[in-house]
């Protein structure tokens, strides 16, 4: 009987001296979905991924992948996996097609480099040296390399970090296409929009632990029916915060930017406008929005995803 999860981990632990980089992490990754590990830098996402990719060994815990229980990811498993490393590099003096051919030779069966080039939209650059590629192009090549063996499971470690918006969108469209083709993706990121746009399942990680897990909608709904109101009040922000505190779930003041969580939007807005009139302060840049994953993280940890 096939389980619904392609991969699952149980109680994974990895310690470096005093620090527990991965502190009893358990999750399971459903088939043909994008599973995202979301968290700030240093949360343990990459370490977890490295254990699953087989380049690091966990101190304890269980891994089950492709229906087999393993302590350590082995060669047979790697045949069916594709990996995009964080800050990885290729030989700068190889041509793009040569890189794909090189990696193709590592697997028992691989796709044709030309096909992959088409998929990652690098056909024009097939004969260019790696060192002449832009950041976005290098990343697309890295994805191509991760796909060269037509893997069932693909790891993408921070795939869009440091890229410009256009390049990020290119990568996103490639990733969406992968699940359409039936592949399972494990993604790590500290970008909230990436997690929301691409993923079916999001696990939030902080300090080596999973602190929440679910679909993006489930996670944001966990905050209840609240709405977020944000505005700029400059020096008078303290006064505004005080005025609104009673009517809201929480008020946050970060250097003049006030952020309010409220269950009763209308009441809060009324209080805000009243105060604005009484204090004679113009309220600027007001935004009313639904909560997002950043807000979820904030409410769980008291910190932002990106410090």
């Amino acid at each position, binding site marked *: 009987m096939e389980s619904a999860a392609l991969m699952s981990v149980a109680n994974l632990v990895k310690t470096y001296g005093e620090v527990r980089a991965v502190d009893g992490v358990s999750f399971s990754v459903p088939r043909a979905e994008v599973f995202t590990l979301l968290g700030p830098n240093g949360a343990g996402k990459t370490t977890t991924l490295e254990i699953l*990719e*087989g*380049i*690091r060994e966990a101190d304890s815990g269980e891994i089950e992948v492709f229906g087999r229980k393993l302590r350590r990811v082995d*060669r047979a498993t*790697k*045949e069916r*996996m594709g*990996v995009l*490393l964080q*800050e*990885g*590099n*290729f*030989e*700068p*003096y*190889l041509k793009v097609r*040569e890189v794909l*051919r*090189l*990696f193709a*030779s*590592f*697997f*028992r069966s691989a796709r044709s480099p030309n096909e992959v080039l088409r998929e990652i939209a690098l056909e024009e650059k097939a004969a260019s*040296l790696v060192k002449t590629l832009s950041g976005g192009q290098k990343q697309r090549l890295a994805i191509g*390399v991760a796909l060269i*063996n037509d893997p069932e499971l693909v790891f993408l470690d921070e795939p869009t970090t440091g890229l410009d918006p256009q390049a990020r969108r290119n990568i996103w469209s490639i990733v969406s296409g992968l699940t359409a083709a039936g592949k399972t993706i494990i993604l790590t990121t500290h970008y909230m929009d990436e997690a929301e746009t691409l993923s079916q399942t999001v696990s939030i990680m902080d300090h080596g632990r999973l602190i929440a897990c679910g679909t993006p909608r489930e996670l944001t709904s966990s905050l209840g029916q609240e709405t977020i109101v944000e505005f700029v009040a400059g020096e008078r922000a303290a006064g505004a915060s005080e005025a609104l505190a009673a009517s809201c779930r929480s008020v946050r003041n970060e250097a003049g930017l006030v952020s309010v969580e409220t269950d009763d939007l209308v009441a809060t807005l009324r209080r805000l406008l009243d105060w604005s009139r009484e204090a004679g302060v113009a309220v600027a840049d007001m935004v009313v929005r639904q909560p997002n994953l950043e807000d979820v993280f904030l409410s769980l940890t008291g910190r932002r995803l990106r410090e």
Partner: protein
Amino acid sequence: MTAILAVARTYVVTACRERETLFWFLVFPLLLLTLLALIFGNIGESGAMTYDIAVVNLDTAPGAAAAAGVVAALGQLSVAEGESRPLFRLHTAAADSDPGTFLAAELDALRIGRRAAVVEIPQGLSASIAAAAHGSVAAELAVRVHKSGGRTSSDMAASIVEDIVAQVDHSLLVRMGLYDEARALRVERLDLGANAETFSYVDFVVPGIAIMGLFVSGLFGVPGTILFGRERKVLRAYWVTPLDVPHYFAGFALGHLAICTIQLVCVWALGRFAFGAHVALFRPLPLLVLLLASVTFLAFGFLVASVARTANGGMALANIVNMPMMFLGGLFYPLGQLPSALRAIMMVNPVTYLGDALRGVTGTAAASFPLGVSLGVAAAWIVVCALVASWRLTWDVGR
């Protein structure tokens, strides 16, 4: 293409495309061979120098045969013969000038390098020689040759003048009937050091350059690729695939051997077609030595890579180690007496034994060590390097 071949191909292709690597493994040995061959290949034939010589003849009394003889002999060498340039350019005092002033002026010119030598024939030289001839005592006066301190050209000019004066002396003795040509001493020359008849410096140096090229490729190429590859996570990209270290290493070694082959062919070809060297590198025994050398220096490169902590540190270490091993390996000239510290390095240095072995089996020089010993030392180095590297070398950062 299998993984091993693909990795080997990558090694070769990137080495040929990257300018720094190309310099070390190709340009450097070829350049060195060219320089050494040009400079020392000509040493048998005298250099094409014309020396500026001043001749100050203070012995102008009538009948001063000796003085005249010297001046004439020097004069002969200042005349061009056919195509070649004359050896000397003579400067003599004008007819009406004061010889003393002229001498002083020429000595100044000598000091600052405008003359290679100043030949001073003191007053009364011929008379003193005539007196010595009759009285069978040593002559009181001699030709004075002034040379400039710290200048090799001056040393050379002075020694040439000494030779000429000796010839004039000889002809004087013959003319005075004091010397019997029939009883002249027979002097012969014996050239030693295997293949002496056909010896040319180029033949001697080509095996040395071949070994040096292999040495430099291993010493710089290996740590460079491994250490930078590890730091930049180029290697890690391989370890997340089914490719494992043994297969990667096999491909790496194969690629390295391919590079060594290219290098050897180029060195041999340059030596053969540009400098007429005849060194039989491509016979079974020399090929064995060359193969062993390639593997030895590959292993040595891994040793350096495993000892260094960072990529830059590794390259610095390679540079520091490079010089003593290359120069204390007897590649460019035979090593004579050395102080014990340096001798110790020489006796431990694999370059010494491999260079010696290659020369021996190609017949360009007599081997100082038995072939078995040389091969054994190289093999021992391979084993030691392999052991240390396999113990210390990490193939991924931060494990």
